[in-house]
């Protein structure tokens, strides 16, 4: 098998999960546990697909997907932050809503093909033999996802806004006592998480597959959630987790195509198993570092 193609397809395969996970990381760092990633992804997938097909512009498709999923996530924010509903139950509900809604919207789009998203060859770098085609000849979303990881890492580590976000997630009572707007910070983080999940979903329907089928995200949102936890809430850990999952997915698909004797079922489950096993081993050694207020409802009393 061509190693250039292999690495390139691993990057494509990892991108949706990376996008969803980095968004969820920011949400969880602000102290909110949004289990609706899968629902937001599939919503992004269908909305991105529908908009791209109608307008012929994949770019508008991605934009629309991000907006649609952010809006959906804000409904979760409204319920959990203002009406103080339970975050776990509401998040699960969000997933169910997203799956149902996307099936409804997507029924007219089955069997159609998405407009092609052009590759963005990076000048000079893409001309490097082998490496150029492997790493520097992708569409812009792949680069965007990697840039987002670095941006989120720097945002959380170096900026004041990032410090406030972490403080809100660490101890919302203290943050409130210091005069920070806990609910507003969390709503922003939830919307960011939603937009990222939407982008990830749109990447599945517009680039990876690229067409619409019901339930096509196939648990990617859940894997994104798991990756956030097992990476101990570190952006670079999320990157490792997502690429590991993407890598094993591509390799097992290739093995299936090559017709090995290993049962297909076992191969199909291997990405999930291996990713979780590796991340468990990593997180078993290091500090866990869950945000102190993660999943706890906040109400500014008195």
């Amino acid at each position: 098998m061509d190693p250039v193609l292999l690495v390139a397809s691993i990057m494509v395969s990892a991108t949706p999960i990376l996008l969803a996970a980095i968004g969820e990381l920011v949400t969880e760092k602000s102290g909110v546990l949004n289990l609706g990633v899968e629902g937001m992804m599939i919503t992004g997938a269908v909305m991105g697909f529908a908009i791209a097909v109608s307008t012929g512009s994949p770019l508008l498709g991605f934009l629309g997907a991000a907006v649609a999923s952010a809006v959906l996530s804000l409904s979760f924010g409204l319920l959990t932050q203002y009406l103080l509903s339970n975050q776990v139950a509401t998040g699960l509900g969000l997933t169910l809503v997203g799956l149902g809604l996307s099936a409804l919207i997507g029924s007219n789009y089955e069997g159609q093909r998405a407009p092609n998203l052009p590759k963005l060859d990076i000048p000079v770098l893409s001309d490097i033999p082998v490496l150029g085609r492997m790493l520097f000849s992708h569409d812009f979303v792949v680069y965007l996802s990697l840039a987002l990881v670095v941006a989120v890492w720097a945002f959380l580590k170096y900026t004041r806004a990032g410090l406030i976000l972490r403080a809100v997630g660490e101890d919302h009572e203290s943050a409130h006592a210091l005069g920070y707007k806990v609910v507003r910070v969390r709503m922003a983080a939830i919307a960011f998480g939603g937009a990222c999940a939407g982008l990830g979903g749109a990447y599945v329907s517009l680039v990876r597959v690229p067409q619409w089928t019901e339930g096509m995200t196939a648990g990617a949102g859940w894997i994104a959630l798991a990756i956030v936890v097992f990476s101990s809430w570190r952006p670079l850990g999320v990157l490792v987790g997502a690429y590991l999952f993407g890598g094993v997915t591509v390799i097992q698909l290739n093995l299936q195509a090559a017709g090995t004797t290993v049962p297909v079922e076992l191969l199909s489950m291997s990405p999930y198993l291996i990713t979780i096993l590796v991340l468990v081993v990593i997180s078993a050694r290091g500090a866990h570092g869950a945000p102190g207020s993660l999943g706890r409802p906040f109400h500014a009393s008195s």
Partner: protein
Amino acid sequence: MADTLLSIRGLTKAYPGVVANDDVSFEIQKGEIHALLGENGAGKSTLVKMIFGLVKPDRGEMLLDGSAYTPGKPSDARRAGVAMVFQHFSLFEALDVAENVALGMENPPKPRDLARQIREVSETYGLPLDPSRTVGTLSAGERQRVEIIRCLLQHPRLLIMDEPTSVLTPQEVEILFETLAKLKAEGTSILYISHKLEEIRTLCDEATILRLGKNVGTCTPREVTARQMAEMMVGSSFATPEARSAEKGEVLLKCDALSMPAPGAFGTPLREVSLEVRAGEVLGIGGVAGNGQDELLMALSGERLAPKGAIWFKGEDISRAGPMARRDAGLLSGPEERLGHAAAPNMSLTENGVLTASRRKGLVSNGFIDWGKATGFAEEVIERFDVRTPGPGTAARALSGGNLQKYVVGREIQQDPDVFVVNQPTWGVDAAAAAAIRQALLDLAAKGAAIICISQDLDELMEISDRFGALNEGRLSPTRAVSELDIEKIGLMMGGAHDMEVAHVDG
């Protein structure tokens, strides 16, 4: 008056069902340390929150330096030169000192400049602190320094301090008082909230006393006795615990070089803790918070099992016995954290009673709870310990801190333990209720029980203990009879100088 910094006039704030502040007026002069006194629920916190912009008053006005002062949020207050050190520190354990300080500032400088400023201020005011340490690893005294430095970096005109000394060693209190005196000399006004009357008498220039939301009087603390102030606070006189007899019985509980690893990243390991306590005796264990108090309680209660041969109860090794077995045998305990550790916040008082008393009081038969008996037990505790609550069906979290404390301590005492281990029995409890709890502990000892009282309130330990030991970094000093001790020796024991030959300790 030209020298008045903050003038409060007719401030009123009502919550549904309770008037927290009713027409409160007083004035704070420039360069004055002004005490705010009152029992729990007297309205001190609400008043301070209004000054700091966390709560808006219903009526009344405040004048800061002669002009109207209406802070809508804490940042307004900070901009006007009002800073506050909270009682429950508003710190983030997972962040470092510099990050915590930056979060409390309006316009923090660049991280490198900030670290330098923190070092400067900490040297100027004698508050040593390393800006890059994670707050979770700091002692309570050091955490308070973080809060104080955070305030000082903004050059406040008025510094509000809410119960600042409740977690400090005597030496740390001294350092704090020196810092406050220095600030006062520089013209900063300080609003000082405390339960500790002696401390107010040595430190403060003026005192305003609140009772049930009303200002019941102003006095100059140096000119009145602590008892007079206490009676103004409570509105009636209260009983101080009686002295107790001297005869002690056999050894009931004994720890033999008990060592245990730290329970978590922010915990403290226990290192060769040895102690024994006899029937009828109260052993007081002091120490600055975070030096192994929680861990010692967990080891004695059975929440964490100790290595074989470390803990002996009535001559039997109970090191590997769980909490249930220890309760059955007569070793009861009351942890420090009321909500979530001693009591389940959302469960009723009756249910919370069943949780620890089900077996000793026979509240369960054939696996079913006998609700009649359980309610009866809760009512007994409420009655005997004067818990102010609508009834035993009230959820634990709905009680004020002091009332819940009376209930959780009373719940154990009512079960007639042979040995009772309690951590911070009067934490955050007003003077009258604290006296009642201490009396109940002494009564229990007088009936022949052995008591281990872990506390950070030294006055309390001196009052009720027969012997005293101090925890420092998980080590217990040799215990000594309280009659041989003075406050300086105790401070040295708490600082870890067990042989007491060290002439002085460094800040």
